C-alpha cells in the first residue's frame, strides 16, 4: 500500500527546506524546487494502480473531534495528478534571476502543493475547511510580493473575496456536525455526513453556504469580480496556480460537498445554477472579445471555459459529469499553457497590451507556433483535449435541453473569434520594427511546454486511459442522485 502521508509531507518538507535556503544561490533554489516538486508526480506514477482506497486516519484534535483523515478515490486521484503536473510547470515558469527571494516564492508554491494534496484527499469536513482556507495564504503572498504594479490591491481584493465567500463555511460545518450528533457521536467524517446531511431542517442554507464558497473560488458567474485583477497582477507562476489549480479546487468542492452531501438539493437547484453558468460562459467570451490586453483576454477566456465546466456539473447526466471532470483537467492543462506562453510573450514584449505587438511571428516563430497550438487546443479543435470534454458536456446537455445546447455551442465560435484576434494582433499583421528583446524561445522553454503539448495531444487523440479514471469518478454523485429520484 503506498503511503499517502508521504504525498502530503514531501512538498511540505520541501517548502520548509526552500524557506531556509541560503540567499545568493537563487538559480539553485529554483532548480532544487523544480526537482522536489516533481517528487509527488513520481510517487503518484510509481504506485499508479494502487492508489484507489488508500487512506490514513489519525486522531488529530480530539478536543474538537477533528481527525486527520486522508483517502484517495478516483475523483481525488484525477485532481492529484493535475496538481502534480501543474505545480512543477508553475515553478519552472519563474525567472529566478529577475526577482527577489526566489527561494521563498518556490517554497510558497511547494507549500500550496502540500495543501492541495491534503485538500483533494481529505475526508474530514473540518480539516477540509482548513486546507481550503490555508491555500489562500501562499497565493496571497505570491500575488502580493511578486505581482505586477497593482499587486497589493489585487492580492487584498483576492483574499477578502475568498474569505468573505467562505466565512460562513465554519458555521455550516458545525451545523452538519450537530446534525450528525443527533444520531450518535458527532463527526466530521464526510462519508457519515453524507447519510444525514439532507435530513437537517437547514439543509438548503448549508448547501448554499458551501456553494457560495466554491462558486467564488471557481468562479461561477457572477462571483468573478476578483478574477481579472488577481489573474493579471499575479506573476506568471501565480496566474498558472490561480487558473490552473485554484479554480479546480472550487469544482472539486462542488463535486465533493454539494453533490455528495446534498444530491437532491443539487438536483433541485441545478437549473438555476445552469443558467448562471451558461450566462458566465457567454459573458466571459464577450468580455474577452472586448479586451485590448491579452492577459486580461486569457483571464476572461478562462472564466468562460471554467463556467463551461460548471455547466457540465449542473446538468443531471453522467456523461456531462464525466465531461465536466475531464474538462476540468483539460482546462487546467490548457490555461496553464496559455498563461505560460503569454508570460513568455510578456517578458519579450514588455507589455500585455495587444497594440504593442504586431508581426512578432517574424522574429519569434517558435513562440508563435507554440501559442497557436495551445490556442487551437483552447478553442476545442478536434484532436485536442478540449474537444473531447466539451463534446461530452454538450452531449449531456442536449439530453436535457437542445436549445440551450445550441446557445452554449456558440461560445466555441466566440472563443475562436477572440483567440484569433489575439494571435492576429500580436503575431501577424504588419511586423513591428525589431527590438533586441524579441528573442525566440529556446530549448529550455520548449522543454517546459513539451509535457503540456503531449498531454493536449494524448487526451485529444487517445482519451481512453483518462476516461477510465474519469468515469468511475463521475459515477458516485450521479448514482446517489438517481437513488433519491428513481426515474
Amino acid at each position: 500500500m503506498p503511503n499517502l502521508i508521504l504525498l502530503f509531507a514531501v512538498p511540505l518538507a520541501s517548502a520548509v527546506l526552500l524557506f531556509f535556503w541560503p540567499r545568493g544561490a537563487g538559480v539553485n533554489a529554483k532548480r532544487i524546487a523544480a526537482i522536489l516538486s516533481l517528487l509527488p508526480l513520481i510517487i503518484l506514477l510509481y504506485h499508479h494502480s494502487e492508489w484507489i482506497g488508500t487512506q490514513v486516519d489519525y486522531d488529530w484534535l480530539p478536543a474538537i473531534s477533528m481527525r486527520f483523515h486522508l483517502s484517495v478515490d478516483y475523483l481525488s486521484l484525477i485532481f492529484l495528478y493535475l496538481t502534480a503536473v501543474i505545480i512543477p510547470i508553475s515553478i519552472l515558469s519563474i525567472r529566478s534571476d529577475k526577482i527577489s527571494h526566489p527561494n521563498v516564492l518556490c517554497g510558497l508554491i511547494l507549500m500550496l502543493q502540500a495543501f492541495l494534496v491534503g485538500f483533494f484527499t481529505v475526508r474530514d469536513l473540518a480539516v477540509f475547511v482548513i486546507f481550503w482556507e490555508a491555500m489562500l495564504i501562499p497565493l496571497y503572498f505570491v500575488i502580493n510580493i511578486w505581482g505586477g504594479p497593482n499587486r497589493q490591491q489585487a492580492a487584498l481584493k483576492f483574499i477578502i473575496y475568498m474569505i468573505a465567500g467562505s466565512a460562513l463555511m465554519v458555521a455550516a460545518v458545525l451545523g452538519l456536525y450537530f446534525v450528525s450528533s443527533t444520531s450518535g457521536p458527532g463527526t466530521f467524517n464526510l462519508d457519515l455526513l453524507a447519510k444525514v446531511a439532507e435530513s437537517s431542517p437547514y439543509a438548503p442554507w448549508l448547501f448554499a453556504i458551501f456553494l457560495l464558497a466554491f462558486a467564488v473560488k471557481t468562479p461561477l458567474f457572477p462571483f468573478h469580480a476578483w478574477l481579472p485583477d488577481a489573474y493579471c497582477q499575479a506573476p506568471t507562476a501565480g496566474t498558472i496556480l490561480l487558473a490552473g489549480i485554484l479554480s479546480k479546487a472550487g469544482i472539486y468542492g462542488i463535486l465533493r460537498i454539494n453533490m455528495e452531501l446534498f444530491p437532491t438539493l443539487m438536483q433541485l437547484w441545478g437549473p438555476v445554477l445552469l443558467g448562471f453558468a451558461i450566462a458566465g460562459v457567454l459573458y466571459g467570451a464577450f468580455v474577452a472579445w472586448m479586451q485590448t490586453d491579452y492577459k486580461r483576454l486569457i483571464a476572461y477566456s478562462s472564466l468562460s471555459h471554467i463556467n463551461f465546466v460548471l455547466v457540465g456539473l449542473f446538468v443531471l447526466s453522467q456523461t456531462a459529469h464525466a465531461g465536466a471532470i475531464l474538462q476540468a483537467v483539460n482546462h487546467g492543462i490548457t490555461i496553464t499553457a496559455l498563461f505560460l506562453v503569454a508570460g513568455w510573450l510578456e517578458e519579450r514584449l514588455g507589455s500585455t497590451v495587444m497594440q504593442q505587438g504586431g508581426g512578432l511571428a517574424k522574429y519569434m516563430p517558435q513562440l508563435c507556433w507554440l501559442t497557436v497550438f495551445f490556442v487551437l487546443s483552447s478553442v476545442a479543435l478536434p484532436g485536442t483535449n478540449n474537444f473531447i470534454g466539451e463534446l461530452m458536456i454538450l452531449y449531456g446537455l442536449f439530453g436535457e435541453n437542445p436549445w440551450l445546447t445550441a446557445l452554449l455551442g456558440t461560445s466555441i465560435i466566440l472563443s475562436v473569434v477572440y483567440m484569433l484576434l489575439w494571435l492576429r494582433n500580436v503575431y501577424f499583421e504588419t511586423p513591428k520594427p525589431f527590438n533586441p528583446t524579441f528573442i525566440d524561445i529556446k530549448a529550455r522553454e520548449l522543454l517546459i511546454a513539451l509535457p503540456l503539448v503531449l498531454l493536449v495531444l494524448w487526451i485529444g487523440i487517445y482519451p481512453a486511459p483518462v476516461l477510465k479514471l474519469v468515469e468511475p469518478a463521475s459515477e458516485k454523485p450521479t448514482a446517489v442522485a438517481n437513488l433519491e429520484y428513481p426515474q
Partner: protein
Amino acid sequence: MNIALTQTDFAALSPLLILLGGALLALLVESFGGTSTKKSLSYIVLAVIGIALLAAIYAPSSNNTLLTPWIRFDSLAKLFTIFFLAIGLGSSLLAIAFFQRFQATHGEYYFLLLSSVIGLILIGTAADFLTLFIGIETLSIALYVLCGYMKDWKLSNEAAMKYFFIGAIAAAFLLYGIALIYGAIGTTRFDLLMKAYQTLPDEASKALFYGGIALITLGLAFKAAIVPFHAWAPDVYDGAPTPVTAFMAVGTKVGAFAALSVIFLVFLPHFDVRWNEAIAWLAYPTLIYANYVALREYQLRRFFAYSGISHAGFLLIPLAAGGPEALPALLFYLVIYSIATLGSFAVLAFIDTRSEGVMMQDLRGLFRRSPFFASVLALCLLTLAGIPPTPGFFAKFYVFKLAFQTGYYGLVVVGLLTTILSAFYYLRFVAVMFSDATENATVWPRSWPTITLGLASLIAIVFLSFYPSPLMNLLAVFGTG
C-alpha cells in the same frame, strides 16, 4: 491545630515570594548599585522570572488552613501562574529592547513590572473576592505608573491619568459588588458562593446577590475592555510606551478573563441563565464595534487596542456558553492570543524609535529590510485573523463549536462575519510590509530581546499550526480544576 507555615507552604508560595524578592532587589539595585550592576539588572530580572517559572512548575500544593481560604493551589491556579510568568518574561524582553532605544531609569520599571505580575498571579490563584481585589489593585496601581513611565511624553501623561480615573471607577464598582455579595450571603469565599446562592432565603437577598454579581461583572468588563466599557483602551494603549502596551494587551486582558472564568466558570457555573444571556449581549456590540473601528486605525498601538477588544468579544463566547468545555476553549484562545500579540509587539518594539509609536507606513518594505521580523509579524497577524492553518483558526473554531452547541447561533454568524473585516485590517498591514522599501529608510540596530521573543512566538505558532493537540489536551486537563 497547626497554624504555623511549613516548608511546603513556603514552597507552594515560592513563585510569588521569588517575584517579590526580585522586585525589591530591582529597587535596591537602582538606588544603590553602580553603573555596571544597573546594566546587568535586566538579566537579573529575566533570571528572577525564570526561577519563579521553574518554581511554579515544581511547586507543591499547600493545604494549610492559613492559606487555602485565600489562595487556591489547584491545577488551574498553577496553570495561570505559569501563564502569567511567561507573559512577564515576554514583557521584560520587550522592556529590555525598549531601554536599548530610549533613555530612562530601569529599576523602577522592573519593580513595577514584577509587581504587576504578582498582581496577575494573585488574580489567577485567588480563592476569595478579597484576594482577587488585592490582585487587581496590585496589577492596576503598578500599571498606572507604568503607563506614564516616560515622564516627558505628553501623550503618556494623559494616558496615565485617564487610565487611573477609569481604573479607580472600575475598582469602586468591583468593591461595591463584593460588598453587596457579602451582604447577601455573608462570605466572600469562592467555594461557598454556589451553595450560599442556592440557599438564599428571600427575594431581597437574591436581589442583593444579583446586584453584586452585576457590579463585579461590570468592574471586570472595564478591565477586559469590553464594549461599552472599552473607551479608555485605545487612548491608554496609544499613550503608553510600547512594552507597557504589550503588557496591557496581554496581561490585563488575560487577567480579567482569568478572574471572570474562575468566578463564573469554576465556582458559579450556570448559576443563572440571565447572566449568560447578558454576556452574550455584551459579545455582540464588542465584536461588531471593535472590528468596525479597527478598520480605520493606522497607529499600531491604537490598532492593537481595538484588536484586543475584538478578541475580548470572542473570549466572551465561551463565558456565555458555559459547560465543561468552556474553560479549555477560553484558555486555548487566551494562550494563542497572547503568543500572537506578544510576537507582534516584539516586531513593534524592534521598529519603534519614536514616542508616537509605529505607524502603518513605518512597516513599508519591512520584508526587504528584515525578512525575519516581517515573517514573524505576518504570521502573528494571520494567527490573530484566525486564518487556517494558523492556531488562531483552531481557537476560533473551538469557541464557535461551543457557541453552536449551546444554541448561540447569532454569535457564530456575527463572529464569522466579523472575521471578514478582521482579515481585511490585519492583512492590510501584511500588504504594507511586503511593498517596496522607502528611500530614506532608517536602519534599525540589532536587538537580541526582540529576536528572542519573535523567534519564540514564531516557533510556537508554527508548531501549534501542525500539532495543537498537546496544548489542547494539557489545557483540558488543567482546566478541569
